[in-house]
């Protein structure tokens, strides 16, 4: 662990400087933090008569109990587990409460980002690291950063929602004690009621008025997990039935009286203006009400979405050219020439004497590539907007409620507080619904159609064209092996900066290096005595954003493929070598677990091969083994084993589904997905060109969750990064062919 301690000291110096300068978020938070505090309960303002709220997550009226889901549900199941964490403590049963998505408020700042944004690797639990995380948390509180993402929902809410429920429970008991004259210690709660010693049951809703008159019991403690009724064991997600029955209304399913429908055609050279257009044909088409000019394109307003889409298709537009190179080959050229000091993001970590070590033993060098990739959740971008003289109401599924206010307000010259945001159930996101294309455009359209609710739906093609993709990256890795050991690894990558781009479009630009380019690059927990991890940030390329697992989706592939190459050069077994080199005991356990699950015994032979990869992302150590076989129709993925340590498995069935989904996401896109530019526009505009995995390619995926990590970790993203390198390493084991570029189907056929 020697190098970890060195790492800590060095990073702490950087860390404190970064925190003093406002860490990764630059200017954000200074002005806003001065006027708002996270302590204000946004539920107080809307409270009806005889109703009570104890905190921003619980509201009880004489009629019903409402629990607030702070994090947006993008399919990951938090629309269910968040209220269930509260219900666990309140002794509520599913069906006894309504669930509502949180409105924009600094009270819902995300504590779960403290670990990811503090400049320390996750396994570093030193006092210095914890101090930096505490400072980051305080900064997050002041900034009121309300955002779903970064696999942070469980880390953020695990404590605070259970405390919120415990406070509600104890306050309701206090109210019942006051009414009945019986000591709180003699009261208990069950199934939405306070129970008196004589068996009398008082429903929570009947206590709301009384509870409103007493101060909340703030020192209530959540229960020990051994007492859980709901959490930690198989339970049915609250949204399953409605989704299966087709009754759940997604954002795209919403309808309002007097509503008209909009479709858009925007500059495919992302973000650039419209120069001129000819809508003469579109205006004569069925159902068309009007054609609107927007800053970056045109919109057709019609009596249904299909009429609007057909008509906007018929508008002829002349576009300003893209700000990035028109042709894909030039994107790669820019990346290739970005390994220079002037594009340095940061040297994230340096241990030992890398230059000297590279001259020791056998030198291994390899270049890796990862393309732009689309998010393309199956529900296309959409939203309903209504602008009136007093402001704008917007119904849209989004991960950053307060930034939606900012972006919509800025688009039409309003103040953020004039934007009323209603979050919606979404048909997936994968990072797509952290961006604002639909929000900005909808504000512009609704502002030109004042008084009429407008429903905007992006066609799939438009969604592809406007999708701000995953970062594109090249890695140039060097390393050396000597006497059967890896002695040096010098990991360098040049990439577009996804998180920086998102922050800029969120109105909070920063000059700090993009920390997402460090994930999978510096948090490498192998005992390699000479190590360096460096990022370069390419300039002038396509805007990029967070794509399920963000930086680690590319650097995890680069690092774990290259480690595999070094292990091979050293003549070692890929699994045994990783286990032997792993410096963090409970991370080693993750590798040992996946070895045991897969009964790893070295090479399989006969055209079959196994690959292993280990990546910690968002604090969650994850190890995967992929097994493939060569067939006459190409590579077939036979089986995947995956072990993940999340500290605590809160919702086991959903956990397994998330993990399997993450593996499928990682494998599918590695096999066959890329977005390429021609004439400034993305060339892939529907799923037939960007397919990912379908059921016929889907292997059996065996999942195990471990609970050794000292903290509760998220699992939405961490299964993604090891999938691609484990597959590439398996293909190498089966065929002897190293694939160093995604998508893999450019180099080898798949069944």
């Amino acid at each position, binding site marked *: 662990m020697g190098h970890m301690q060195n790492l800590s000291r060095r990073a702490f110096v950087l860390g404190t400087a970064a925190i003093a300068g406002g860490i990764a978020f630059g200017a954000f938070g200074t002005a806003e933090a001065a006027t708002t505090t996270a302590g204000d309960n946004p539920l107080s303002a809307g409270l009806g008569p005889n109703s009570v709220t104890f905190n921003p997550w619980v509201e009880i009226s004489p009629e019903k109990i409402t629990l607030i889901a702070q994090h947006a549900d993008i399919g990951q199941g938090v629309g269910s587990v968040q209220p269930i964490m509260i219900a666990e403590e309140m002794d509520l049963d599913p069906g006894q409460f309504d669930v509502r998505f949180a409105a924009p408020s600094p009270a819902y700042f995300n504590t779960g980002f403290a670990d990811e944004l503090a400049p320390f690797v996750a396994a570093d639990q030193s006092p210095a690291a914890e101090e930096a995380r505490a400072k980051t948390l305080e900064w997050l509180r002041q900034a009121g950063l309300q955002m779903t993402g970064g696999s942070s929902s469980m880390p953020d809410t695990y404590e605070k929602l259970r405390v919120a429920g415990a406070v509600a429970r104890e306050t309701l008991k206090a109210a019942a004690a006051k009414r009945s004259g019986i000591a709180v210690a003699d009261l208990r709660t069950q199934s939405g009621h306070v129970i008196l010693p004589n068996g009398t049951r008082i429903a929570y809703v009947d206590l709301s008025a009384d509870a409103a008159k007493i101060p909340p019991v703030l020192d209530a403690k959540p229960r020990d997990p051994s007492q859980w009724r709901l959490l930690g064991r198989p339970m049915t997600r609250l949204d*399953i039935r409605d989704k299966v029955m087709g009754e759940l209304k997604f954002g795209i399913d919403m309808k309002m009286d007097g509503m008209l429908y909009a479709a858009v055609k925007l500059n495919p050279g992302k973000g650039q203006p419209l120069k001129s257009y000819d809508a003469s044909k579109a205006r004569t088409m069925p159902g068309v009400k009007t054609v609107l000019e927007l800053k970056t394109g045109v919109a057709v307003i019609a009596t*249904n979405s299909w009429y609007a889409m057909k008509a906007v298709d018929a508008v002829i537009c002349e576009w300003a050219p893209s700000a990035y190179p028109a042709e894909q080959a030039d994107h790669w050229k820019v990346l290739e020439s970005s390994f220079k000091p002037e594009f340095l993001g940061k040297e994230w970590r340096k241990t030992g004497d890398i230059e000297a070590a590279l001259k020791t033993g056998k030198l291994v060098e390899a270049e890796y590539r990862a393309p732009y990739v689309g998010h393309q959740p199956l*529900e296309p971008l959409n939203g309903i907007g209504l602008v009136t003289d007093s402001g704008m109401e917007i119904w849209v599924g989004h991960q950053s409620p307060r930034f939606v206010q900012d972006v919509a307000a800025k688009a039409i010259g309003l103040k953020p507080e004039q934007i009323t945001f209603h979050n919606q159930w979404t048909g997936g996101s994968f990072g797509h619904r952290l961006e604002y294309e639909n929000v900005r455009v909808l504000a512009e359209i609704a502002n030109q159609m004042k008084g009429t609710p407008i429903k905007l739906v992006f066609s799939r093609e438009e969604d592809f064209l406007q999708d701000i993709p995953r970062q594109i990256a090249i890695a140039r890795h060097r390393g050396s092996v000597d006497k059967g050991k890896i002695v040096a690894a010098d990991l360098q990558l040049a990439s577009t900066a996804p998180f920086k781009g998102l922050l800029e479009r969120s109105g909070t630009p920063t000059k700090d290096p993009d920390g997402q380019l460090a994930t999978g690059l510096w948090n490498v927990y192998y005992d390699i005595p000479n190590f360096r991890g460096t990022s370069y940030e390419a300039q002038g390329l396509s805007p990029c954003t967070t794509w399920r697992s963000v930086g680690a989706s590319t650097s995890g592939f680069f690092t774990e493929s290259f480690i595999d190459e070094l292990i091979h050069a050293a003549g070692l077994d890929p699994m045994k070598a990783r286990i032997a080199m792993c410096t963090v005991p409970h991370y080693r356990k993750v590798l040992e677990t996946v070895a045991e699950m897969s009964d790893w015994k070295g090479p399989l032979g006969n055209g079959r091969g196994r690959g292993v990869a280990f990546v910690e992302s968002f604090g969650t150590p994850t190890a995967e083994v992929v097994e493939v076989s060569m067939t006459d129709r190409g590579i077939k993925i036979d089986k995947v084993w995956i072990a993940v340590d999340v500290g605590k498995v809160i919702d086991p069935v959903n956990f397994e589904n998330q993990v399997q989904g993450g593996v499928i996401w990682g494998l599918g896109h590695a096999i066959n997905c890329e977005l390429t530019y021609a004439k400034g526009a993305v060339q892939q505009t529907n799923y037939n060109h960007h397919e990912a995995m379908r059921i016929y390619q889907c292997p059996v995926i065996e999942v195990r969750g471990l609970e050794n990590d000292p903290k509760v970790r998220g699992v939405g993203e961490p299964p993604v990064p090891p999938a691609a390198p484990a597959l590439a390493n398996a293909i190498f084991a089966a065929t002897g062919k190293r694939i160093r570029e995604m998508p893999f189907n450019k180099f080898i056929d798949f069944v």
Partner: protein
Amino acid sequence: MIELMVNGIKRQVDVVPEMPLLWVLRDELGITSPKYGCGVAQCGACTVRIEGKAVRSCQAHIGEVAGKSVVTLEGLEKREQNPVIQAWIEHQVPQCGYCQTGQIMQAISLLDLISNPTDDEINQVMSGNLCRCGTYPRIRAAIHAAAAKKMAEK
């Protein structure tokens, strides 16, 4: 006016005959279980039954559906008791859930054709239904469970 039967009820719509059934159902009739995902028969989220056959409603022009009977997931007979629906709930298949209504309609059609499908048969029939969340292992398990349940009921 174009007339058709939707979930057993006679409906009239005043749209151009080229308009896809999907958008008629969603925007004109307010039936939202068929989802728009791709518009080009690449995702299967819009799957409904026309005259008992599973079809991609984004590809069916309303003019051609005139006079025919359309059933969406909302209109399935004894929906709560349908073994596919029950298996989907028991196995907690959905994540975001957006593709699942189409998956379910396709799976019901599969079990009508093949009462006890193998994994290969499931792959053949279900591969046109895209799930971006990656619920395929659960889809497979739910179809096997629904098949077993259906056969046990016979």
